[in-house]
């Protein structure tokens, strides 16, 4: 479903490559956690997948399309099939939960309709349904800056869900949350993942979370893949190598 071939990323003014010659292949239904130190290249990897970042070299194929070769309009079509959640949630301040979630439909609608804020009853109904799915029905009309961190991430998840994604990307979605909330968010992500048979790719710092929820773990060290396998095989030795 998703293939990464010879992917390399070199940031301007940096000697070391952020990613060098990465080859990975993912199937629908996999719940992948990406581990690695800060600055190892995890975020770079995730952002190459939905084209927020153009790689220096290599290709990303999604459902037979080479994402790295697409023009802006085609790239937008691919992006709407990939939901993304962020460390700092990246919600739009001053808008309500419902308004934020509804922006998840933007990729499917005309600019004019988006600007006017004209949503069909089907779209509104679906928005309310995903808000219920993440357990925020009581907060629907609340402005997002009044929510707690965990609730904000739930809004982020609902927004991604409204895209009807095939892929769910997460760039350290629980790194600014406490351990208990992190656990709840992961349980929710896993539930949604199973329900919609997604391909889920998430960066995490917490190895225990990864081992508990992932079906596959990838470790990135200095821009290279140093581990790719089952959670049970991620042992003490690999841990040392990843976080040395």
């Amino acid at each position: 479903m998703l293939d990464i071939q010879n992917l390399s990323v070199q940031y301007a003014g940096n000697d070391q490559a952020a990613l060098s010659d990465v080859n990975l292949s993912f199937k629908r239904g996999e719940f992948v956690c990406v581990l690695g130190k800060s600055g190892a290249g995890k975020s770079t990897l995730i952002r190459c997948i939905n084209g927020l970042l153009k790689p220096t070299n290599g290709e990303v194929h999604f459902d037979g399309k080479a994402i790295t070769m697409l023009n802006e309009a085609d790239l937008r079509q691919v992006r709407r099939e990939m939901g993304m959640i962020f460390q700092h949630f990246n919600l739009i301040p001053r808008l309500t939960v419902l308004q934020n979630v509804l922006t998840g439909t933007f990729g499917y609608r005309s600019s004019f309709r988006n600007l006017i804020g004209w949503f069909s009853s089907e779209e509104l109904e679906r928005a309310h349904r995903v808000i219920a799915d993440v357990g925020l029905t009581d907060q629907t009309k609340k402005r997002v800056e009044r929510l707690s961190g965990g609730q904000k991430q739930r809004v982020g998840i609902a927004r991604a869900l409204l895209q009807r994604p095939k892929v769910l990307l997460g760039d350290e979605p629980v790194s600014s949350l406490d351990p208990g909330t992190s656990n709840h968010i992961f349980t929710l992500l896993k539930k949604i993942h199973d329900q919609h048979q997604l391909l889920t790719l998430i960066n995490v710092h917490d190895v225990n979370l990864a081992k508990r929820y992932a079906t596959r773990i990838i470790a990135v060290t200095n821009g290279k893949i140093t581990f790719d396998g089952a959670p049970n095989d991620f042992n003490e030795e690999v841990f040392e190598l990843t976080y040395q």
Partner: protein
Amino acid sequence: MWFKRSSIVTFLLLILFIYLSMKQTEFDLSKFADFRNMIDFLSQWFPMDTSNLPRIIEDSILTLAMAFLGSFLGLLVALPISFLAAWNTAPSRFLYQITRVILSFVRSIPEIVFGLILLTALGLGPFPAVLAIMFHNIGVLGKLVSELIEASDPGPQEAMKAVGAKNGLANLFSILPQIWPNVLSNYFYRFEVAIRTSLILGFIGGGGIGQRLFNDFKTFQYPAVSLDVFVIMIIVIVVDLLGNIVRKRVI
């Protein structure tokens, strides 16, 4: 502890600049020896002549209309331009540079110069004054808003791109809600400035209470002048209060 040796140099330099500036501006406190003249002069201002009050209020409304229309049209034009003049939303490097140059050019021309040109070209009256205020405010608000855009959090913008929204829409939706309270705040300040500017533009024939003040002053009708000044003060205070209320409601 709090002062470095270099701050003594700064201090001495400041003293020098103050001295030189006083020389240039013929700053001379001994002139206040004739302070009685000022009191005599001001005593002619009272009692206020209220016979013209209805016309003064009419002129005040005209002044408010000039200031509001000029600054608000300025904001409307400046808003889209400021997205071109911010590096994080400009569609191209070239457009970014060009709009910045145009904005600073427009900003560098004072309203009174726009006013002198437009009043000559279009004839006396409030319309050229409105245009003069608008042009200057496009330059000022364009710069202020583009700086707000540049200082906004890039996170929501990234999220809107990830959702598959078009660039322009992604920028608009992720940035405008963030900066809106500050935009309004800046706008109200500029509205206040525009009221004062429209007074000056009244002096050169732009109409409104500024022109009335100027005419009353030039024809030595000081009891009328005092009422003009009083009404102007009330307008400025009311607009300031109004601005505070709106800002509180928005934030």
